[in-house]
């Protein structure tokens, strides 16, 4: 605790603790399953984004093929559960092992490449996994996907903890994963490992000349990143109950993972959190036309006007379009993400105050 207080000050630490406690207590007060659902999606997104952050944000290796790890986690856990009756809390270890293996293979192929070539190679590899999953029907059931019919109940020494019929166990699992990932990120950031990562990000050759083994550290970063991403994949799979190559191994997913991190603020601990908090509710709000409806209900826009009817009919179709616009805006005007932009504003205000 002491180093925590020292690095970020007493107040933020206490505030952070309060938030964590509140999050743990949340399901007691909020029974609305829809709200819980959104929170679970947010948690999964945070884990995805933060895991990517370790490799992309801190080590500067932009992989746009992270769906491979997500998918490996998802498939391993699901297949073990469905066909070998392995309960998911054991299955996720299998998922992590597979993801680690895949990461080491991918690392050995791709890390000789730099910058944009690395990006392209990561995409190619992820696509190979996706198509393979599609074609290796005996193993993965191909395009038909894997459906979870029964999740074994979690018992500790005879007492039933949960039978997974409600969302609450998934909520807590997600929350624990989020805390885990944030803890790992925080530990790395202030450790020698983190310094090496960031050195590689800033200038690979300089780092190398200082004696930092590029291969070793890049692979460590990728391995950590892959294993944590696979946790997100496993959770998603068991929660949604259905996976197929086009949902868990898709290029779209890889892009989304990168976006979560970029929009929030790459290379920071809480960037992906912000990114997830922005993207998930936005996507859901657009999809269910909440924005359009509230604009009309609040009287800002008349339902009968041309703009009004355009909103009701088309806004929900436009959520991916808005993603794209968001990305363009963030890259052009807020390359350090929302978090970076906020910091700049705060710094600007302090400067003014100093005058």
């Amino acid at each position, binding site marked *: 605790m002491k180093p925590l207080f020292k690095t970020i000050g007493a107040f933020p630490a206490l505030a952070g603790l309060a938030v964590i406690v509140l999050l743990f207590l949340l399901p007691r007060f909020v029974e609305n399953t829809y709200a819980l659902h959104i929170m679970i999606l947010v948690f999964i997104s945070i884990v995805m984004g933060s895991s990517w952050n370790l490799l992309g944000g801190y080590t*500067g290796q932009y992989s746009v093929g992270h769906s491979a790890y997500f998918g490996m986690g998802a498939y391993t856990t699901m297949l073990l559960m469905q066909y070998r009756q392995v309960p998911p809390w054991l299955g996720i270890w299998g998922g992590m092992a597979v993801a680690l293996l895949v990461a080491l293979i991918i690392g050995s192929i791709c890390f000789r490449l730099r910058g944009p070539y690395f990006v392209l190679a990561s995409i190619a590899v992820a696509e190979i996994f996706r198509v393979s999953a599609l074609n290796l029907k005996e193993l993965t059931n191909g395009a038909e996907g894997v459906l979870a019919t029964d999740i074994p109940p979690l018992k500790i020494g005879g007492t039933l903890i949960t039978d997974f019929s409600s969302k609450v166990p998934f909520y807590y699992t997600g929350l624990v994963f989020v805390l885990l990932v944030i803890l790992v990120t925080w530990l790395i950031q202030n450790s020698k490992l983190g310094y090496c990562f960031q050195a590689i990000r800033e200038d690979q050759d300089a780092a190398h000349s200082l004696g930092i083994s590029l291969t070793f550290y890049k692979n460590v970063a990728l391995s950590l990143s892959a294993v944590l991403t696979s946790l997100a994949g496993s959770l998603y799979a068991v929660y949604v109950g259905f996976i197929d190559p086009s949902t868990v191994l898709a290029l779209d997913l890889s892009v989304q993972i990168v976006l979560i991190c970029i929009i929030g603020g790459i290379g920071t601990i809480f960037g992906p959190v912000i990114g997830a908090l922005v993207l998930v509710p936005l996507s859901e709000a657009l999809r269910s036309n909440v924005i359009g409806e509230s604009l009309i209900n609040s009287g800002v826009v008349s339902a009968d006007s041309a703009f009004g009817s355009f909103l009701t009919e088309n806004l929900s179709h436009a959520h991916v379009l808005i993603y794209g616009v968001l*990305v363009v805006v963030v890259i052009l005007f807020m*390359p350090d993400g929302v978090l970076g932009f906020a910091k700049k504003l705060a710094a600007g205000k302090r400067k003014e105050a100093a005058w």
Partner: protein
Amino acid sequence: MIIFMQSLISGILVGGVYALIGIGMTIIFGVMRVINFAHGDLLMLGMYGTFYLFTLFNIDPFISIVVIIPLMFLYGGFLQKVFINRILGTLPQNQILLTIGLGLVMSNSVMLAFTSDYKILSTSYSSSSFDILGISISTPLLISFAITAVITAALYWFLLKTDTGQAIRATAQDREAAQLMGINVKRMSIIAFGLGASLAGAAGALISPTYYIFPQVGSTFTLKAFVITVLGGMGSIVGATLGGILIGVAESIGGVYFGAGWKEVVVFVLFLLVLLFKPSGLMGKSNV
């Protein structure tokens, strides 16, 4: 034997169009070192343009290239000037993300405007083919191949013989040196992006009689374009041409002998092999 020859010929013809896409991307990369993730979406715009010219004004797709090329050139230049130029100096990763964002905006705007209905462009000769020694050759594909050859030749002439063309090549070779020599590199970037866009648009126009049109059609082509450019050597036009045809053939033959489902994997494995063993590509010029 017939099966092999059939797949070889079909692969070469389709490869011609792929080559055009690859050339466009390689020019953009060569001059600006930007990897254009929206390249396939530029092709998609070319397809939609051709489609509407055909359905509204009855202009044959192969003729509409005359309109599509200049329009896409202007559009590409606009994109470069307004968006891409701003991030030229920054992290390549940011550039990639910007082009991804632009691509998303393009494909989704089209979806909003024209719905995701698949559109088929049927000309009188869309289904025609002729037979040579037991191998059937698709008429529209043959025509696209011929036109691609003409465009590539014209492009080559432009880059070798004209002042602007040589300026572009100079910028691609060494941006700073070119600037020192008095070349307006900003303008070269705009022209390069415009060229790349117009080639992508032209490719879209050329395959529209044999393909189908929908807003997300761009993504498969973007990936293929990458593979082609890397295979041929980033920045090399001859490389991209050869790369395109090679990929077309690899896909076609791979599809026959490994099963149609593994076609894409053949292409990607080839891609990785090139990246690992000869990263500068067949005609390699740039550093990895």
